[in-house]
């Protein structure tokens, strides 16, 4: 989806301002928003790509006007509403009105360390040989899918060079395409594709700059 989350190359947001002595959390609510997001992610009712898709689907003005933990929180509420795990009234006051869903996996305190240490690896066995090798020139597809994608707009329709081959990984676009488990994984070869800044932004761009993205194989075609 061509949303405001896809920010690469936008202008007019002003300088990057780092907060001096920034605290890890700005208020207790951020701590709980982080922990709730991680704990609910562990229930297996959605996956990380569906979480990203939910955040990206917030109204543009809400997305731009919210801090990142506020975006996470709104995304989490949306994921729960969509799956009938909570309704809007319940989310407003915390009072339970509908019965709890069954078969929700609960992350227990004793399992937190192991769960975080394990993470969610996305590498999978490759189902076919890699189509591209390091050094190959590739062209990124000009595509504008309605759903979730990880090919940013600023690199679409450009020519770059394969810099790294990462093996096969769960394909984010497919992974976000089904709302409930079992999710589609459709593992594909993943590459780092590097572009000259002048190819992305024009001849006036800085000749010393190169920019790369990580791109799944189906985003790419051989450069002609």
């Amino acid at each position: 989806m061509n949303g405001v989350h896809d920010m690469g190359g936008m202008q007019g947001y002003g300088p990057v301002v780092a907060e001096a002595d920034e605290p890890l959390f700005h208020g207790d609510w951020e701590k709980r928003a982080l922990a709730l997001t991680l704990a609910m992610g562990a229930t297996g009712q959605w996956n990380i790509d569906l979480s990203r898709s939910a955040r990206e689907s917030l109204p543009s003005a809400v997305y731009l006007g919210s801090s990142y933990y506020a975006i996470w929180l709104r995304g989490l509420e949306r994921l729960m509403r969509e799956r009938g795990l909570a309704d809007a009234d319940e989310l407003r006051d915390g009072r339970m009105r509908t019965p709890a869903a069954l078969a929700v996996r609960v992350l227990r305190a004793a399992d937190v360390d192991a769960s975080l240490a394990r993470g969610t690896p996305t590498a999978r066995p490759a189902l076919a040989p890699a189509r591209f090798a390091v050094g190959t020139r590739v062209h990124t597809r000009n595509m504008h899918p309605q759903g979730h994608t990880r090919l940013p707009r600023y690199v679409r329709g450009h020519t770059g060079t394969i810099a790294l081959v990462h093996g096969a990984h769960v394909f984010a676009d497919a992974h976000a395409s089904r709302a409930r488990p079992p999710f589609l994984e459709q593992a594909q070869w993943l590459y780092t594709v590097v572009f000259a800044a002048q190819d992305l932004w024009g001849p006036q761009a800085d000749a010393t700059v190169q920019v790369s993205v990580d791109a799944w194989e189906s985003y790419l075609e051989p450069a002609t």
Partner: protein
Amino acid sequence: MTQMQTPHDHDHDHDHSHLDDMDLRVRALETLLTRKGYVDPAALDRIVETYETRIGPHNGAAVVARSWVDDAFRRWLMQDATAAIASMGFGGRQGEHMVAVANTPETHNMVVCTLCSCYPWPVLGLPPVWYKSAPYRSKAVIDPRGVLSDFGVQLPESTQIRVWDSTAEVRYLVIPMMPAGAQGLDQQQLAALVTRDAMIGTGLAQQPPSAAGGR
């Protein structure tokens, strides 16, 4: 709001009501999810404690410092960062697939996530607000020298700048150059020179106190 209030007062009030609103909203959510049995409040406490105390940029600094003095480790790190970093006890969530990128006199690396806020948690902890902000996410890929300038960093015009946009589940750790005058320091002293920003690529490693003081 009365007419006597200044714009600053207005912003101040607005911020407060916003924080109160978020506070209430999260409390309602935690209460509900606990009542429904979806979350274990002790697990929430453990998650927060983990990122407050155990997982943070000190982990990445230890990796970088070791890479400065241990050539075999550095080769491993550049070849298979996930395994090399795991050997020091760091890995897992948001660092499942790591790649280390080393700065040289010719090339400076910078990491961004233009689409959300992907960041190598096991080595750097949770990202700062600026990393997740629109200014950084928009500007890093079109004007990385401007970003460096926002951070007060000036590189030679001939230095190549390499920006890594983390658009999949690979996470990048910048290995800054060891500062001049740091030879002879032990790994712990070296780690103290490695800032979080140096490992994102918006900063450089700090000068050792003696070198800085001697100028």
